[in-house]
């Protein structure tokens, strides 16, 4: 029978101060984990409100203005408070040093600052909600955002601050990966999750400052009327869109790259097989990170940007599909001749393959100039990005949470309930969002509070789907929290995996390893090792 180590990072010191001012990357990871889960819950409640209002045409639950605030808050919270920090700041923080055999990240204080800055930014977002909230959409397009009466300033200030938290995390990770690896762990012996975090961190550091200056200019536009984005003052609203998407397109890869990293770990662990095409996967992460800076204009095909720019952006957009495809096929090939088991994390990994492929392929629709003209700003786009963000990132995140849950707490969750919840989420998700592909191509515009009768059946179906999904998440919340105290002790290596974090105890001690680990085998050498599973 496994036992929980008597002394571990969870009980090393006690009291709330020892948590809120901790420098231990694992505790900071846990703080982040709870914060983003709270954000997801709030964003999810807004999502359910959206779906309730859209159950039928006309007013069901709220006024048009309220609806506009609800979908803006849903988008802004999900993006800035949940999905951007989700995998890197929560799981990445917890795991990165362990995976490279280090005691901590390079700058523990900066790491703590990152969380506090995140909290500060969230407070501004909450203030904004309290002060009448925002109704601009998460994109804050000018000139609407400069003239609406709602409290745009405190929300954009919040976003500005949240950007720093993201920059701090990225900066910290790059240095950590460069400088803190265990001797023997060369670049191409790092776990692919670390590669994913590395590529992500590059984007965080390069793109986020531009979001910062964009928000500053937007605030100046509102308070000082500087007129850079305001057409009435000789400015150009389309320029604002360039600024915004220069950050926000790369940002979508901040969301997906770490998720892809998790999938590499899950598929190889549960297939007990060496990952297929390691180098190709590592390099395609970098390639995606680089190309992501060249394609932002695909959000602006009908914005009035020049036809030349639109054409070039369309071409570059397609290039992203190729490294993404390489990854998908490499993961498939990893399963070939494996020793596959279907625990919950693997179920999420397979859901990812299924849903992200759909989401990504519909991205190709949107990248095609003529087709995007019809599909832009319809529910087709809404469906696309939920398939990649929820079907991609959130599935990977859930897979990662289940996979490392026993490492974080030392205890197992209920596999039975986990499978049931996964089924609800998967089915509910497809009900909610596949319908939206149809709605969108039929012409249903997004950000609509009400709609024409002809769209009613599909909207209603979609709303029902969102309830199914919510049931799945509620079940998940219950068994996960239950297991923190009550779960079966998991042992060091419940899945029989080979990456370094499984060589320490669960939960790990404060400085991660009791003895400095030795690099003795690569992260995926399943052709040479059969590690023992502790459950």
């Amino acid at each position: 029978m496994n036992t929980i180590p008597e002394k571990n990072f969870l009980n090393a010191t006690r009291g709330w101060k020892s948590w809120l001012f901790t420098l231990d990357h694992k505790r900071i990871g846990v703080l982040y984990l709870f914060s983003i889960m709270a954000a997801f819950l709030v964003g999810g409640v807004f999502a359910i409100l959206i779906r309730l209002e859209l159950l039928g045409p006309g007013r069901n639950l709220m006024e048009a203005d309220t609806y506009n605030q609800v979908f803006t808050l849903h988008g802004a919270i999900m993006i800035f408070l949940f999905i951007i920090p989700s995998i890197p700041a929560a799981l990445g923080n917890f795991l990165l040093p362990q995976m490279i055999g280090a005691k901590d990240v390079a700058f523990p204080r900066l790491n703590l600052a990152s969380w506090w800055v995140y909290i500060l930014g969230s407070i501004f977002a909450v203030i904004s909600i309290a002060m009448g909230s925002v109704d601009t959409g998460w994109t804050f397009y000018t000139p609407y955002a400069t003239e609406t009466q709602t409290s745009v300033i405190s929300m954009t200030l919040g976003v500005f601050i949240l950007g720093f938290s993201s920059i701090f995390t990225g900066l910290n990770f790059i240095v950590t990966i460069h400088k803190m690896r265990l001797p023997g762990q060369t670049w191409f012996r790092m776990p692919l999750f670390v590669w994913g975090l590395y590529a992500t961190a590059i984007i965080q550091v390069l793109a986020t400052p531009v979001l910062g200056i964009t928000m500053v200019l937007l605030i100046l536009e509102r308070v000082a009327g500087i007129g850079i984005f305001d057409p009435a003052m000789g400015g150009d609203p389309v320029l604002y869109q360039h600024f915004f998407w220069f950050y926000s397109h790369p940002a979508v890869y901040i969301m997906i790259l770490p998720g892809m990293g998790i999938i590499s770990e899950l598929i190889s662990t549960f297939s007990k097989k060496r990952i297929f095409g390691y180098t190709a996967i590592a390099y395609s992460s970098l390639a995606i990170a680089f190309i992501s800076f060249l394609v932002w204009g695909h959000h602006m095909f009908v914005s009035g940007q020049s036809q030349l720019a639109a054409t070039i952006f369309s071409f570059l957009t397609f290039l992203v599909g190729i490294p993404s495809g390489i990854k998908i096929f490499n993961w498939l090939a990893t399963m070939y001749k494996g020793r596959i088991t279907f625990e919950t994390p693997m179920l999420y990994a397979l859901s990812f393959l299924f849903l992200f492929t759909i989401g990504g392929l519909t991205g190709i629709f949107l990248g095609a100039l003529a087709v995007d003209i019809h599909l832009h700003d319809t529910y087709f786009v809404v469906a696309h990005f939920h398939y990649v963000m929820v079907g991609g990132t959130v599935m990977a995140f859930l897979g990662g949470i289940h996979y490392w849950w026993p490492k974080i707490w030392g205890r197992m969750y209920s596999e039975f309930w986990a499978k049931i919840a996964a089924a609800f989420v998967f089915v509910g998700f497809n009900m909610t969002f596949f319908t939206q592909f149809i709605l969108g191509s039929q012409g249903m515009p997004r950000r609509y509070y009400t709609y024409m009768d002809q769209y009613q059946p599909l909207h209603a179906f979609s709303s029902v789907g969102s309830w199914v999904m919510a049931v799945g998440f509620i079940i998940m919340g219950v068994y996960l929290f239950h297991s923190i105290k009550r779960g079966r002790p998991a042992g060091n290596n419940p899945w029989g995996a080979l990456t370094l974090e499984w060589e320490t105890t669960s939960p790990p001690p404060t400085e991660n390893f009791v003895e400095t680990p030795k690099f003795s085998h690569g992260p995926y050498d399943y052709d040479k090792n059969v590690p023992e599973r502790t459950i």
Partner: protein
Amino acid sequence: MSQQNKTNTPHVLPLQVYLGTAAALFVLTVVTVMVSFVDLGGWNIVVALAVASVKAAAVGLIFMHLWFDRKVFLVIFLAGIVFLTIFIGLTMLDTMRRGDIYQISADPIHKNAAMYDTTAVTTDTIPAAADSTHSAANEK
């Protein structure tokens, strides 16, 4: 823990190097200001930026030790320049080429244009190919 073996022994440059660089920076500043008083048309700004780049390079390579330090720092710094260039370049591809097919969609609207009243309008009431310098006045 032994201090001696792997400490970062400082890399000290001779004083002359600093003073020489400083002198070069001052001289270049004077030069660039003087050139700005000569009318070179569009070339003024080009020369000014070229001089500025040389100065910035001097500061970066010598004061900031990029020349002597690990090259990864230089790579990081250059990455900033490269991505900034991408940002500027692709944005200009839009802002400078909006009139490619119809000049009218590149120019700001003259507030007195027919658009804003209900009198009859045809294409020829709106100048199709106004000069590209956006001379149309904007009222506030």
